């Protein structure tokens, strides 16, 4: 263990190793935060995004911190729910079981850009007679625009921006522009100040009630923005971290350890064992990997664990085995192995206690450098349509962005966030790995 300690101390002298370690530690901390803050099942449920789960977030919105760098501030989403604002709700009994419910939802709008969309969601409780509601939009300069006049079901959505009659009334501007535009400006410019949505509802039964939620969708959202299905990308970026790290680590350990073990056994026993391993390796060079993965994905399971496991299995019998074989062939002839034989050590003892420990210094850097390739492999599998159907991963975010034309439509944040994380992970591990290689590998020491 002393050589390990001294080697680690040596590592501190390389700035790239220190930088790599810092990146890795930050990633591990993020991963721990993700796992602690939200259980996996909840993350999966949110990411699958059932009906109504992502009602209050805009579509394809860039991250909100972009406003820090802009002179013209773009709006972020405002959600006003009468269930959370009891002060704005007045109930008046008109007799005959008739009740008037008046809801006022006021909000400040001080941005230089128009919102992306305006939506009103109503929630009504009643037994038989459907309540009726009229809604007016009150602008800061006192204009009143009727927006909704309708009887309500138990839950209704009014997407004002898609209401073509409203658009016509607003002089052919969709609601997100028309409701906010300054009437005196020649080019459309939002009017700043306090807006109100006034809802006047009539319910016809004892105990019936109406609640209203107004969502003014912003053009920016959260720390990471949202995707085409209104999902907050932060979720996938956060939860992608533990998935990427665990997968990279486990796959790299599995691949490098089993490659080394098989190479050691092959070289020690020689003869037909060695021949068989060599033939399998040659065979594996010919076999097309992609159809194998697709076959397993179609017939068996698309789970990331299965696909990655298979890939690790296939990568065990590849070039690496030949490199280890070359090293083990040298080790096998060393005098200390001969002395082990002379006291009739068993074959397994020689392989596990004498040959493998000798090669471990070569293994450690290789294994660290392998991690990023498996992290990127997940992204590659997603690109090929073999990604895990459930898990929120960086690769899937990246590929959905690519598939939905993020580059063409200018949603650069959507591509940049997962790519930067992938690249950072790759850089962190390979910076550490390359330095470890120089420290642990005596032939490279000082190069």
């Amino acid at each position: 263990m002393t050589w390990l300690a001294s080697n680690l101390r040596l590592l501190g002298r390389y700035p790239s190793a220190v930088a790599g370690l810092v990146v890795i530690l930050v990633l591990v901390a993020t991963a721990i935060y993700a796992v602690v803050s939200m259980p996996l099942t909840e993350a999966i449920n949110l990411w699958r995004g059932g009906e109504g789960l992502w009602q209050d977030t805009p579509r394809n919105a860039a991250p909100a911190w972009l406003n820090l760098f802009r002179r013209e501030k773009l709006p972020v989403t405002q959600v006003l729910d009468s269930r959370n604002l009891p002060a704005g709700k007045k109930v008046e009994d008109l007799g005959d079981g008739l009740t008037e419910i008046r809801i006022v939802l006021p909000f400040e709008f001080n941005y230089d850009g128009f919102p992306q969309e305006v939506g009103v969601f109503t929630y009504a409780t009643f037994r038989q007679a459907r309540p009726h509601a009229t809604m007016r939009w009150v602008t800061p300069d006192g204009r009143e625009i009727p927006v909704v006049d309708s009887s309500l079901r138990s839950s209704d959505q009014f997407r004002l921006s898609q209401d073509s009659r409203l658009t016509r009334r607003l002089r052919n501007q969709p609601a997100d522009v028309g409701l906010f535009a300054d009437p005196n400006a020649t080019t459309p410019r939002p009017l700043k100040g306090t807006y109100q949505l006034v809802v006047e509802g009539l319910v016809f039964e004892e105990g019936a009630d109406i609640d209203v939620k107004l969502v003014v969708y912003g053009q920016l959202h959260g720390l990471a923005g949202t995707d085409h299905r209104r999902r907050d990308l932060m979720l996938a970026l956060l939860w992608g971290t533990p998935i990427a790290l665990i997968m990279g680590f486990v796959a790299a350990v599995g691949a490098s350890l089993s490659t080394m073990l098989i190479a050691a056994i092959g070289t020690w026993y020689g003869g037909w064992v060695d021949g068989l391993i060599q033939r399998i390796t040659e065979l594996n060079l010919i076999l097309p990997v992609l159809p194998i993965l697709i076959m397993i994905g179609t017939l068996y399971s698309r789970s990331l664990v299965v696909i990655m496991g298979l890939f690790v299995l296939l990568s065990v019998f590849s070039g690496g085995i030949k490199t280890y074989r070359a090293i083990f062939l040298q080790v096998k002839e060393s005098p200390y192995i001969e002395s082990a034989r002379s006291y009739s050590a068993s074959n397994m003892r020689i392989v596990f206690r004498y040959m493998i420990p000798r090669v471990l210094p070569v293994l450690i850097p290789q294994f660290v450098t392998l991690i990023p390739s498996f992290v990127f492999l997940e992204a590659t599998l997603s690109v090929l349509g073999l990604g895990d159907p459930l898990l929120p991963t960086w690769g899937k975010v990246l590929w959905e962005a690519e598939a939905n034309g993020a580059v063409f439509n200018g949603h650069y944040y959507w591509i940049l966030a997962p790519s930067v994380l992938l690249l950072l992970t790759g850089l962190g591990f390979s910076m550490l790995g390359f330095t470890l290689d120089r420290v642990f590998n005596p032939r490279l020491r000082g190069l």
Partner: protein
Amino acid sequence: MAVSEAPSIQSSAPTAAGGTSGVWRVVRYAATRLVSLFLTTVVGVYLTILIANMGGHVDEIRRATIREELGTFIGMSQQYAHLTPSQRRELVEQLAQVEFRRLGLDQPFIVRSFRYLSNALVLNLGRAEQLTSDSGSSLVRLIILERLAPTLLLTGSAFLILFFVSVFAALALSRNYGGVLDRLAVALAPLSAAPSWFYGLFLILIFAALLRWLPFGGMVDAPPPPTRWGYFVSLVKHLILPVGSIVLSGIFVGIYSWRTFFLIYSSEDYVDMARAKGLSPRVIERRYILRPSLPFIVTSFALSLITLWGGSIILEQVFNWPGLGRLFYAAVQFFDTPIIVGNTIVYAYLLAITVFVLDFVYALVDPRVKVGGSEGRSV
């Protein structure tokens, strides 16, 4: 990376040592090697056939598809409107049987799998089941040939740039070991952790979306420029980004590993000895460093060269490049066995021939290599 797997071949390489026994040994070695390579190819191709058909599972999918298509066709057709449902079902079954016989689906999969194998081994690639070439042919040979040129253009030019730039840059760096450029190369090496398609996304974002200098993808403008010169310019324009991303993803680690490789060779005792003798650096580099590392360079070159076959599936997808990689991907998705098998058999043969020839090239360029020598020089 092929660079690191290359040296293994030498462990079982022959020698061209003189005398009749030497010749006999070489012939015997060549024969056993050929047989073993051929057997590996046969087994590999047969496994590919099983895999491409999902062990015969694809047959059921295809039978069901044929029945369904015939069913809809007859159901929609005016001509058969007077038939009763049971008559119609009978007709569908009859026509389906004809179609099965035409496609060979009436025979069990095991029988057909061996026919696939024997046809593949004599390079009789046959006809594709679903896909066609752009000129409309369904001959696998023509489909592959049509896609071969774009793939070779893309991966070939990227590979040549990558290989020669990294070897020569590495040589220059190993000469100025410890300099600013050398340390920069070491520091940049981790950038190669990302695959080429990943860099492709970035390059598209910068040069196509933001700056609008280069096209997003494809091979030539649509419609293709009429003049030869215009076509060439458009081709080069479309080539820059994909080639750039392959080169970007490989160049840093390429330079780093070749540099380390040359440094290891230049720290051998005989190089110190040559220096002590006062030989000029040029001579030392040519005779004492490049000469002994030549077998490794040749192997690495040859083995990477054949991996160009097949192209890069995802990169071609990202750049919409009409190459073999995308063909293969499409074939896998349509379960188009003849194309998958055709692609694999050509690759297997190229690999086997290269490995076989390399054994002998080794003996020619490296006089230290012995028959069956398993001293296993590590690199």
